[in-house]
């Protein structure tokens, strides 16, 4: 399905990442937005509030982040593509209902423009310390899909993808911007509507009275019904059977929750995206994402000047994690160097996938700024000396 031209503002723009994400959402068909002001994500909400009246969207500023996430889940069941945007403290508040979205299998998009934390932290300054929260933030077992753009252009592109994946797998999808990408202004090219693929909602065509909200096929993703279509279905955050009825039993839990996880995991190859450069044959592979991926490439250039064989691995999606490829590379290289603006999060994920077959080193940053390329270089040099 192609994008609705009504929402696509084709052209070349000079936009920040927040506004580019907003344009991506509108291009992908988002027509319901609920949000609550929080730096550094607010520009996205402001932009949508300006654009929506002309494209037929509903913008509402809710009383808090909990209301915002819950409203977008409700809107999804009312038939809209919906989104909210926030930052660290807001994501923390939203977490319970991100779990609800996962449990009800609600397509929706949550953008987190990461800032320095914990707590109020550094509202106007960059951080990347919410990546594990994105994966594990809500209680219980579930999987999530998360994108990490490194530029305003990707903020647009990845937000479109986020909507598509949300529909395809009926799951909340996160766009993990960071403050630097969110606030940075750069050239953004928005293609014509007929060049933007939009995933249609998986609506059921079951006869009335025969629809089972959580019956599924090989792809493990149930077809959806929206309120008002006449199916008179029930959904609940309780553990439920294929009718959507609550059933508090080990048997039902075992029927439901492993599938919620498996529907994402078994399609990881379809979802996972990464960029790789000279990783094969390298001694050291730098793993990074978001704004840190850009900075890392400066360090890689410096290392190559020193004659070190350095490869580069950039996560476009952070979740699901590209386990297979990291495990393969681990067999061939001396060390991974993980560059991220936190004190070690994706680092542990890389280390887990490397299974001790190579060194995994961290180039940390507590947040508020980006790495000094020279600091990354030092870690690369250390990695090159690993056995």
């Amino acid at each position, binding site marked *: 399905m192609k994008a609705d031209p009504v929402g696509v503002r084709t052209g070349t723009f000079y936009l920040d990442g927040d506004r580019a994400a907003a344009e991506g959402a509108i291009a992908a068909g988002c027509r319901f937005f609920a949000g609550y002001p929080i730096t550094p994500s607010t520009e996205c909400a402001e932009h949508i509030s300006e654009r929506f009246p002309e494209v037929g969207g509903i913008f509402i500023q809710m009383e808090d982040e909990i209301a915002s996430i819950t409203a977008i889940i409700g809107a999804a069941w009312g038939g809209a593509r919906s989104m909210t945007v926030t930052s660290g403290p807001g994501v923390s508040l939203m977490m319970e209902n991100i779990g609800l979205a996962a449990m009800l299998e609600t397509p929706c998009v949550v953008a987190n423009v990461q800032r320095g934390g914990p707590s109020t932290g550094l509202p106007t300054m960059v951080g990347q310390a919410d990546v594990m929260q994105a994966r594990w933030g809500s209680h219980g077992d579930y999987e999530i899909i998360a994108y990490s753009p490194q530029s305003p252009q990707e903020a647009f592109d990845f937000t479109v993808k986020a909507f598509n994946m949300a529909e395809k797998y009926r799951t909340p999808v996160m766009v993990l911007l960071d403050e630097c990408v969110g606030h940075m202004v750069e050239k953004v090219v928005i293609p014509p509507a007929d060049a933007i693929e939009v995933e249609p909602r998986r609506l059921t065509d079951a006869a009335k009275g025969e629809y089972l909200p959580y019956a599924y096929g090989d792809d493990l993703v149930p077809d959806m019904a929206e309120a008002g279509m006449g199916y008179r279905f029930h959904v609940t955050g309780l553990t439920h059977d294929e009718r959507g009825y609550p059933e508090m039993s080990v048997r039902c839990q075992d029927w439901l929750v492993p599938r919620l996880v498996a529907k994402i995991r078994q399609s990881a190859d379809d979802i996972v995206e990464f960029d790789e450069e000279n990783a094969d044959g390298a001694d050291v592979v730098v793993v990074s994402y978001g704004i840190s991926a850009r*900075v890392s490439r400066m360090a890689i250039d410096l290392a190559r000047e020193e004659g070190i064989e350095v490869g580069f691995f950039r996560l476009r999606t952070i979740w699901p994690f590209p386990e297979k490829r990291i495990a393969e590379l681990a067999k061939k290289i001396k060390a991974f160097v993980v560059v991220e603006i936190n004190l070690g999060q994706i680092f542990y994920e890389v280390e887990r996938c490397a299974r001790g077959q190579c060194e995994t080193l961290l180039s940390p940053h507590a947040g508020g700024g980006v790495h000094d390329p020279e600091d990354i270089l030092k870690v690369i040099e250390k990695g090159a000396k690993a056995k």
Partner: protein
Amino acid sequence: MRREIRITGFGGQGVILSGVIVGKAASIYDEKNATMSQSYGPEARGSACSTQILVDDKEILYPYIRESDVLVAMSQEGYTKFLGELKADGVLIYDEDLVNPGEIKKGIKAYPIKAQRIAETDLGRKIVTNIVILGFMTAVTKAVPKEAMVEAIKTSVPKGTIELNLKAFERGYDAFREGAGEQVEEGSGARSGAE
């Protein structure tokens, strides 16, 4: 070649818009890459406000200024705050009615301009001070082609004010005389620039 430009002033002087215009001119109306970032929070509301523009032929990997090539100062506070990051042979552009540069280090090329005065008296609108100084900067640094700057102004300022802004830009551009603003002699205080 990467060029790092800092524009600083008070909140309300149009500092951020200036950054957008330079970045847009370089990346959309010229064939370069350009990122623009701005200062946030209380800084943008009345006190020192700044924007950083990075212009490069290649993709911009490092998103912040490390050592600026150009510092454009429209306030004393901004000047004091950001002078330290200016390269030893960097270009300093300042409004001489608003900024007292004190002793300027040898090697720095300083170009004063009475931008606000030009805006107020010649153009009748204080609000275009930033565009006057952008015109001047364009002439001084040649960081971005003049034509690109003109296009960027046309698409960035409110529709009814395009003519006024273009006039302001030309006025600032013309205020630069070739050969002016040679390297400042240490302690000489001799500054030749526009008016």
